[in-house]
């Protein structure tokens, strides 16, 4: 059981909430409180739009513990339109959606896994899917 850690991360994980640096105005994700661009203190919350594009991707055929039931699935580096790049699972790919570098994607909140067995908490978080329209 690692409930306290999940509980602390929920805001960034459910809603893509990061930070904006008040000094150089770079947008930061994940939130880290010190701006990697100018070294200034950054604690202002910023909610990302959820729009981005695939920067690179790979398909996982053997999944790490806890994710087995979802394999095979695609993990991508997604470049958010506000700048940061993050790692996330792609979802809702269907049959007809060929994943490509540069493909526009949007954030959705989905079930990531169950913590432990069927009696554990469900862990939700961001994934990305092909833009709907």
């Amino acid at each position, binding site marked *: 059981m690692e409930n306290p850690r999940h509980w602390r991360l929920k805001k960034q994980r459910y809603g893509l909430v990061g930070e904006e640096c008040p000094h150089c105005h770079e947008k930061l994700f994940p939130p880290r409180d010190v701006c990697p661009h100018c070294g200034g203190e950054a604690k202002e919350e910023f909610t990302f739009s959820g729009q981005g594009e695939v920067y690179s991707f790979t398909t996982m055929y053997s999944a790490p513990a806890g994710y087995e039931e979802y394999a095979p699935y695609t993990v991508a580096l997604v470049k958010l339109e506000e700048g940061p790049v993050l790692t996330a699972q792609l979802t809702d790919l269907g049959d007809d959606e060929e994943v490509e570098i540069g493909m526009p994607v949007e954030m959705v909140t989905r*079930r990531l896994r169950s913590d432990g067995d069927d009696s554990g908490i469900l862990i*939700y978080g961001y994934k990305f899917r092909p833009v709907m329209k």
Partner: protein
Amino acid sequence: MEERVHNESEALLLKPERKVGIVGYGAYVPRYRLPATEINRIWKGDTGGTPIREKAVPGLDEDVVTMSIEAARNALLRAQIDAEELRAVWVGSESHPYAVKPSGTLVAEAIGAVPSVSAGDWEFACKAGTEALVAAMGLVGSRMAEYALAIGMDTAQGRPGDALEYTAAAGGAAFIIGPAEESLAVIDAVYSYVTDTPDFWRREGQKYPSHGQRFTGTPAYFKHITSAASALMEGTNTEPSDYRFAVFHQPNTKFPTNVSKMLGFSKEQIQTGLLSPVIGNTYAGAALVGLSAVLDVAEPGNKILVTSFGSGAGSDAFAIQVTDAILERRGNAPFTQDYIQRRTEIDYGMYVRMRRKLAK
């Protein structure tokens, strides 16, 4: 100010002290579709008719919480309000992911409505969503709140091989209730009709529901919907021809088609909101996702009659009128038909995997 009650039937309506309406709405339907012919192939040796064409099936990473979050985000885009302005986040469903732990808190957290908000879950079989909607009208109508979010969403399951397996589907919609002046559609009145009827149930600890076979039709669905819709029209002094659109709870194609005829509505009036042939029975989401499909195309001034049905049993009937504001705000989020057309067909084997039917 005291509102004068003109007749006895008007006194039976639920009408808030201040006028309220739908400030924002949003649909969600998952992308996977199981054709009903697949169920016939597995269970009926490819013979017999089917109650619908196909049904919507949620992905492995979807449940009532994730689907509600997306519908709620769509509703917020149309309402053009901040999630922190919501004073209630209520989720009506019979497939909440947890037996104990509300879906409402997760949805409220994900959309950014916490912590100054009431949150919780509603249960009344297929009318849990409209039940939440009526409560939201009360909260806003009494000025306890400016905005309240009510969601009807389900990922319904039928026992493999059971008649319900053809139709038990996933989807629903979210509605933000607010003052009438800001609304895309004003809700003029509601009428609720309830009796104790054992047509469909699920006992604690059972994975699949049970139903009273032929008992589900006449004394349950038809009796409650016709009673509620008729009383609403009597109380509001309206008749079927006053409504441009009508939406009824839709467990299949036949029931809503027949009940609309019994009440005097035409095929044309129910067509836009009749989604069960292509997405199945979305239970607590069914009447509400039908309403969202109607709001996507309705014109200012159009009247809409919506009547839900929940086993157990009861119906909520709503008289709704669309306002000018709908034209500028409904384009802010995906339409219901965008979700329906985003379609990936699956076979029974993939369905068994996606719905975890082999799990112990």
